[in-house]
């Protein structure tokens, strides 16, 4: 099983130990177009699953990121503040948004694996 999971909100989470790194998917960045601004959560913040946690703004639209799992924010990608284009260039890598220490790893089970997510994208494209 791949260690990367996907939400219906077109976000990904890659889990390493009890910390998950989160961002938006390749499909999401394509849909948004050129990203011009991100707003990131402060480290230490406690979030519930599906709570609004970050904002991403492109030339077309602004939208929210939702915490794919509950937990504590332990880090956010400050490099995006100066260069939001990283999200377009490498959404699933250098374009990560924040890291969460999972309070309930069981929540991962309800998220999609890559195959299920790709099927969802194929349906929406």
């Amino acid at each position, binding site marked *: 099983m791949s260690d990367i999971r996907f939400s219906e909100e077109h976000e990904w989470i890659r889990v390493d130990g009890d910390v998950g790194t989160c961002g938006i998917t390749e499909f999401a960045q394509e849909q948004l177009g050129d990203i011009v601004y991100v707003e990131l959560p402060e480290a230490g913040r406690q979030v519930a699953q599906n709570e609004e946690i970050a904002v991403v703004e492109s030339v077309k*639209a602004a939208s929210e990121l939702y915490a794919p799992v509950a937990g504590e924010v332990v880090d956010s990608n400050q490099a995006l503040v100066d260069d939001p284009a990283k999200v377009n260039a490498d959404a699933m890598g250098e374009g990560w948004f924040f890291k969460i220490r999972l309070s309930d790893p069981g929540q991962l089970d309800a998220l999609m694996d890559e195959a299920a997510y790709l099927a969802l994208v194929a349906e929406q494209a």
Partner: protein
Amino acid sequence: MSHASDLSRPGAAGAAAPITTNSGHRGLDLEEPLIFEQDAPGRCGVDLPEPPELAGRLGGLERQAPIGLPGLTEPQVVRHFVRLSRNNFAIDAGLYPLGSCTMKHNPRLNEKLARLPGFADLHPLQPAETVPGALQLIDELAQWLIALTGMPAVAMSPAAGAHGELCGLMCIRAALEAAGDAREVVLVPESAHGTNPATAAVCGYRIEEIPADGRGRVDLAALTERLDPTVAAIMLTNPNTCGLFETDIVEIAEAVHQAGAYFYCDGANFNAIVGRVRPGDLGIDCMHLNLHKTFSTPHGGGGPGSGPVVLSAALAPFAPLPMLVRGPDGPRLAEHATEADGTAASFGRMKAFHGQMGMFVRALAYILSHGGDGLRQAAEDAVLNANYVLAELQDQMSLSFPGPCMHEVLFDDGFLKDTGVSTLDFAKAMIDEGFHPMTMYFPLVVHGAMLIEPTESESKASIDQFIASLRHLVERAKAGDAALFAGAPYLAPRRRLDETQAARKPVLRWTPPAEEAAAE
């Protein structure tokens, strides 16, 4: 109908080679340096005597450096602003089909009356007893708004639509708190104007979205399921931003009230139903009216806006001060809450003065010059025009939801699939055709949205020309001419702007060359 061969593509076969000029001007499209770059120290539009030496009384707080305004002659300044105004596309220049913004004609009669010295020269600080005529005008407009909406009360002071939203939500909060029932959530549909959730957040509420159903309307079942004692209000636009009438609105109002919540209606699109539907009959508790949309007062930079809020009997006691109170001697302004005049429960003051007087004059002029029948016809013509656009374009463009629509028609980018042309490119190409683009990428509920609102101001001939241009562009896109769109607009003064760079690395002010050199 086609007048141009291939003007939009300089250098293409059949068109003249691009012309360069010595001056940099392109015919009547005049180039000029920035006004700061025209600076010649010592130039001035007025000739003033040297001021006498005066002892400073600012205690050392005087400005130490020059203020940095350019030295210019009066003709330079006049030409500068005239050039800028010529580059500005306005409803006075041509068709401006910006959906959900209602760019309609501002009748000149309104302007004439607003300039009457008795209105134009009012000062907000002059004693109220010296302005009975102004108070009477506000009262008369208020009575019209009450009659047109079927609501018992109206707060006239909010300064614009979003301010009106805030006023409405503050009334709702005050009413809930007075009943000892503070709540925490405001529901907004997915297709809401961005100001709705923003207002609710400013007012301290948590926002939750209600999904749309397959018909582009609020999903009544999802709403009903979400309603509980934590919900303070729903904010709903009707007609909504998909240009559709919320057909379940009466059921929505009933469900909301049953849950003990209030129903805020965003009245931005009241221009589609004025004279046909009274919000008071639908169970709405409060709604703002954008006088600059429905009642033709100037929009945007020509403003200011004005956003009176009509209120149900349950919310009226909480309306903001100052409030117009009707008495035996005519209307008067209540500036402070007192028990006697029904202002005791007011949530307080949200604006320094008494509302946008100049806009009140214009709106009342519009209402009186149209009459009830004329207002109704304006709404009907707005809806007719949008449906004409729908009918003439639906075979070529992709209609997001089946018609008929209300005052605006929503297309998505389905028809551009596999053409390599995006909604943005399509909109840019419309500039070459001489039209202001429609609203793009809003509402967010459809992909690559294009929201067209022709308004009632446009003649059939003008809409026919617009439709013909759009059909022409669709044909070009479908014929594989993506390159044309990628470079558009070719005929605008600055051609294609780099919107990404403008957002990522905005240049917010001009920097003097010396300062710029020092910074590098």
